[in-house]
């Protein structure tokens, strides 16, 4: 059966259609769902796309976490369905407490829009189950607040539990331990700053994101 995935659009999201298009390429039926929606019944997983939800006012994700759809997202996370946060979506998942830590301003205080080489650190996650551990993927980043920060005890736990999902080859933003993406304890909630949907066709520079999108479909099946 075709996997159905919800892509939550907040006021200020700007990657939702790219994500829908890219997920369609790997065989999923993805649909944009407005953030005011209270139910995600009928969906096998959810992606929170990039952008500037609610204008990023106060802090990225600070307002979005209270959107009605986030209650349903939290429920899906609890049930074990894949919940993926890309860029602003990662920020929203940390604000919502579904992932630990926070995303701080980039150490160089520059908005970064460039392709980075990231390493797959674990294949035990909803976003990397089809990938190869140690593989290097070229995937664009596009953020001002992507500098992953957490308590030393949190970092130690992420490492000992094999929950660092991606690391940057060359740390662009000052992230703790070169972290580009992490997952929760159950490994179904994954947040990352790079945009796999922007690496989903050779025409736009890289297809390296496809294996991650295929992993979401596999996790939702």
């Amino acid at each position, binding site marked *: 059966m075709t996997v159905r995935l919800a892509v939550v659009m907040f006021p200020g999201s700007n990657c939702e259609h790219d994500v829908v298009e890219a997920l369609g390429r790997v065989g999923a039926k993805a649909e944009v769902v407005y953030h005011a929606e209270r139910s995600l019944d009928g969906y096998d997983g959810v992606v929170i796309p990039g952008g500037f939800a609610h204008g990023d006012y*106060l*802090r990225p994700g600070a307002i979005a976490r209270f959107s009605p759809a986030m209650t349903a997202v939290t429920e899906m996370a609890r049930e074990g369905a894949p919940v993926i946060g890309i860029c602003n979506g990662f920020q929203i998942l*940390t604000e919502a407490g579904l992932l630990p830590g926070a995303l*701080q*301003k980039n150490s*160089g*205080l520059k908005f970064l829009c460039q392709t980075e080489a990231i390493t797959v650190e674990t294949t035990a996650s909803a976003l990397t189950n089809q990938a190869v551990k140690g593989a290097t993927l070229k995937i664009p980043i596009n953020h001002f607040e992507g500098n992953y*920060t957490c*308590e030393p005890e949190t970092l130690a736990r992420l490492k000992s539990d094999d929950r660092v999902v991606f690391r940057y080859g060359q740390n662009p933003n000052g992230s703790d331990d070169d972290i580009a993406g992490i997952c929760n304890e159950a490994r179904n909630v994954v947040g990352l700053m790079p945009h796999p949907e922007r690496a989903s066709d050779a025409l736009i520079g890289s297809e390296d994101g496809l294996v991650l999108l295929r992993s979401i479909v596999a996790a939702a099946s």
Partner: protein
Amino acid sequence: MRFDVQVEVSLRDGISDPAGATIERSLPALGFDGVEAVRVGKSIRFQIDAPDETEARTRVEAMCERFLTNPVIEDSAVALSASEREPASP
């Protein structure tokens, strides 16, 4: 009672502050030497109606915890005083 509230949000000790560091590096170039420990935060001001100061403070601190700050990286300091402005007429 109505209270004037000022919440100062700052990065917690030990959390890097790229904006503060940039300002600190820039000051000597403008001739301002001897400045250290620059930290950039934000200030949020509002008025709140509450039966008394204790209740007002409790509510503002709950707001800070749940919404106005991200406790992973930020601290808050609350300054609160009885407002001299007239409350809005009912």
